[in-house]
């Protein structure tokens, strides 16, 4: 960061006290594909649309939900390439934490370090903020957790959240249906129904992605056929 001749930040305050670049970054997130997450009593589920630019694209080569550590997964809304950079950095940070303390990184710590990276890019020379918001789902000894991290670097813990194109409808839907006692499988059904709300076209195992983590603390990305099974249960 801060390479070439830019030692000054491109993200500067406007007279109204806003950082306009971050506002624009949030707009970029808001026009990205919908993604959401739900925290259940015994786990967390995250899901996203996987709309490809053309039917010629090999959908098996695209993976939006990524594993950061065996017990933490992440999904994004916004610019895919930006999310790849963050995923790479987060994985490295988790590994560095493990090498130093010889314990798996707690979810809050990883979220905090990722958020710190995103904040640094709003206050460094010659770089722009990330055009993604992340939903981090993890299960450690504090139980299941779901965090949303924004381009500004602020993060919040959510019981259920949505980001991207259809965010207001999705959030209203989630608010109505959210129940703290929900089991993980029911949460998956709710996630699918929420995605279905704003989905253009026929929903199938090939155009959505679902990742989940339950009591065994292992983050799993569902295969298209597993997603089809859940879809059949919902329909």
């Amino acid at each position, binding site marked *: 960061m801060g390479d070439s001749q830019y030692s000054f930040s491109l993200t500067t305050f406007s007279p109204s006290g806003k950082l306009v670049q971050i506002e624009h970054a949030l707009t970029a997130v808001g026009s990205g594909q919908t993604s959401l997450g739900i925290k259940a009593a015994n786990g967390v589920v995250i899901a996203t649309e996987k709309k490809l630019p053309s039917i010629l694209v090999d959908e098996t080569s695209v993976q939006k939900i990524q594993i950061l550590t065996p017990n933490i997964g992440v999904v994004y809304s916004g610019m895919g390439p930006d999310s790849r950079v963050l995923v*790479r950095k987060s*994985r490295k940070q988790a590994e560095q934490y493990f*090498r130093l303390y010889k314990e798996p990184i707690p979810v809050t710590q990883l979220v905090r370090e990722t958020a710190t990276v995103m904040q640094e890019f709003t206050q460094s020379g010659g770089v722009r903020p990330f055009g993604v918001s992340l939903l981090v789902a993890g299960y450690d000894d504090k139980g299941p957790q779901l965090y949303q991290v924004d381009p500004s670097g602020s993060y919040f813990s959510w019981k259920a959240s949505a980001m991207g194109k259809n965010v207001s409808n999705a959030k209203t839907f989630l608010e109505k249906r959210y129940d703290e006692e929900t089991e993980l499988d029911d949460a998956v059904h709710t996630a699918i129904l929420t995605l279905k709300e704003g989905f253009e076209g026929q929903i199938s195992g090939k155009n959505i992605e679902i990742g989940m983590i339950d009591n065994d603390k292992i983050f799993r990305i569902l295969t298209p056929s597993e997603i089809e099974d859940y879809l059949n249960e919902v329909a």
Partner: protein
Amino acid sequence: MGGFSFDLCKRNEMLVQKGLKQPSFLKTGTTIVGLIFRDGVILGADTRATEGPIVADKNCEKIHYMAPNIYCCGAGTAADTEAVTDMVSSQLKLHRYHTGRESKVVTALTHLKSHLFSYQGHVQAALVLGGVDMTGPHLHTIYPHGSTDTLPFATMGSGSLAAMSVFESKYREGMSRDEGIKLVAEAISSGIFNDLGSGSNVDICVITKGKREYLRNYLLPNPRMYISEKGYSFSKKTEVLFTKITPLREVVEVIEVGDAMEE
């Protein structure tokens, strides 16, 4: 990033030339072995860690985890073997996340040898690296300066000659799991009993396609035999005839009278 600074090494060489006796290195003697059998790789190690003539750890672990399908035995300076295997294990893990594939033994090999080469032998780790990946079973030895060999059976450490004599006479290709374990245990035992730098127990690790078994303390040929059952008892006490206590300082009694001083 800088890299290793060799200034002090030059200074040491100059001092030796001027006649200064160089302090002796803390070498940790070891017997470590590996062999390829029909279904995979078997690694073996003794469990003695020495500081010169003293046994520092009677049951240390010399077979280090690198990846679910790759393990590495380490001889030489214990701190160096631990640190270098830990570091490469970490890098392999990140690589697995990025590629989504199982780690290859040659990947671990290349990381280790380039690290050791860049430190020009000052990181004193002699390693026996073995594992099974999608291309089959592999066994390598890595020397502190960064050179490597690929072998069907290998030994390293101060007990390597004792162990190698067992391998050279009894190794065959395509051994079964039990035959392989027996041979590895025999080789390590040979090192334990014939080399002062090796001792205590035999650790074995069997790696096959999709499975690994870490047989910690597979053999315990040096049990602690004599433990006194009676315990310790001290004979007759000295009789107390007379007691006098003399305070070293006079004890002054503080008596609180009245209210505290007014301002």
